[in-house]
């Protein structure tokens, strides 16, 4: 018995050892990012490398953030993110309701169309989509980035449909018998019951548009409308060697995502299990 306990302890110790060793490899780049951001210029290129910046140059952050208008970029990004979240949650929940709770001809057709949009590379539709927005005179505005979400996307619709399916039909049927319209069932029954799934979809939409690079690259040509991702990329091409400033700016772009992850960890995990990808 005690030998077995010893073995278990040894096993746990070994597990922790391996987990910590590989975990350090995953964590180190983050540490190095923040450390570089806080270094005085001389320590950035010092050999052997300086592990703890002394004294930490906190002013690198305001310096990086004012050198390039990152404050403005953050506001621009947040505005696009907010509209993306709103559009995605609204449109996808409506369509998912239609797929999960209404029996109508054409549901299968919608399904196939969703699959098609997932399989075809975005490059195929890239040029015509660009010309559509150009003929609408939307290039240089945020509209090409925030209007399409209001038409839903296949992934989020699918995720919400999966969740709506788990709400028993008896509930909506009972509401119908009590004279409730479909719009009423959707707003007063399905949506309140689906808060976790809606949060997941909203979260993915937020992170997706926060991290989006190709969209802003294609459609934002005015420096004042840049998002963080495109602003940061332009910053690299102009100041390739100023690593402490680059690191500070990258850290500023990363930190909100990490904070959101910690606040919404459960929502994340839920989303992953909800997509029903487990076969």
């Amino acid at each position, binding site marked *: 018995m005690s030998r077995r306990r010893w073995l278990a302890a040894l096993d746990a110790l070994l*597990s922790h050892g391996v987990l910590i060793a590989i975990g350090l490899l995953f964590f180190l780049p983050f540490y190095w990012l923040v450390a570089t951001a806080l270094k005085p210029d001389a320590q950035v290129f010092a050999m052997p490398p300086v592990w703890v910046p002394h004294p930490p140059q906190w002013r690198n952050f305001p310096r990086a953030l004012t050198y390039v208008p990152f404050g403005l970029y953050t506001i621009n990004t947040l505005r696009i993110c907010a509209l993306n979240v709103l559009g995605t949650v609204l449109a996808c929940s409506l369509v998912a309701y239609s797929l999960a709770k209404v*029996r109508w*001809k054409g549901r299968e057709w919608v399904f196939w*169309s969703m699959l098609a949009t997932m399989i075809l590379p975005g490059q195929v539709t890239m040029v015509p989509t660009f010309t559509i927005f150009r003929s609408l005179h939307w290039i240089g505005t945020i509209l090409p980035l925030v209007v399409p979400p209001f038409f839903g996307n296949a992934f989020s619709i699918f995720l919400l449909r999966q969740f709506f399916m788990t709400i028993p039909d008896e509930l909506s049927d009972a509401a119908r018998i009590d004279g409730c319209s*479909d719009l009423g069932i959707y707003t007063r029954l399905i949506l309140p019951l689906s808060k976790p799934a809606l949060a997941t979809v909203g979260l993915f939409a937020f992170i997706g548009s926060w991290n989006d690079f190709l969209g802003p690259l294609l459609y934002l040509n005015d420096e004042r409308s840049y998002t963080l991702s495109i602003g940061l990329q332009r910053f690299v091409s102009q100041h390739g060697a100023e690593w402490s400033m680059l690191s500070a700016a*990258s850290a500023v772009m990363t930190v909100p995502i990490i904070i959101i992850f910690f606040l919404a960890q459960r929502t994340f995990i839920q989303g*992953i299990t909800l997509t029903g990808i487990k076969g």
Partner: protein
Amino acid sequence: MKERSSHLLTSSPPHLHPYRRRASRNAQLTGLAFAAPWIVGFIVFFAYPVIASAYYSLCSFDAIRPPRFIGFENYRRMFTEDDLFWKSLWNTLYMVVAGLPVGLAASLGIALLLNRKVKGMTVYRTIYYLPSITPVVATSILWLWLLNPEMGLINIALGKMHLMQPGWLTDPAWAKAALILMGLWGAGGGMVIYLAALQDVPESLTEAAALDGAGKLQQFRHVTLPMLSPVILFNLIMGLIGSFQYFTQAYVMTSGGPQDSTMFYALHLFNRAFLDFRMGYASAMAWVLFLVTLVCALLVFKTSARWVYYAGEGR
């Protein structure tokens, strides 16, 4: 319509008949109304662009003057005159054939590691997962710095261990390997999917195998791996689609260099469309990309019957 309602009549309890009958007539309208955003979006942002793109691919089109029909000229040029097309296709296939399996294996390995029952697991899982949601542009900048041949942390570490210090992104022979290495840092994204599936593998199965005298390795090979195979297929297909469209990292970090060693297909396509405004040519390239992706995905699906095990299918 008739068929649908009669089906509903037979399958629903008798007292619901009058209501169901009315509902099925309205259902068509309701369903359409709720699905309208998708249907409109599908037509405007997908169906029309797909058709237009197919037409543009047969045209000379600079996005200013109207497209001029030139038949299969774009495709002919692509296959016979554009060396960069072949180079970028080769580079992209390199990422698919070399990078993707390494990434999939890393994700699976980490998932197995994180599936153990030890204290503080949520902390470990968080650390392994975070890199995969870090903004790509930020990741790219960070790794430009880490991979710096002289000052980068990676080569400093290799130097300490008296190992070879490659030029990474400055060396055509190492640039793709550098990007694959960077990709491994994001392996946590695929890991979560494996982890979710691993937690669904019934312990009774591995225990039964253990009782039959199977060692840890045999349990993994003959129980865990088959149970995971549908998820491996899922990750493989998604990874395939993603790898063929590899773009942002190369755009930010190397712009395709050195010596076009990281000129990937999607980057070449983007440059032709928005640098040279050869929109017709870019559209033709996009269709070839689609066909190549499709053929690879179909090949994977074809072989998957042999290695993917679906529980409950019985075989």
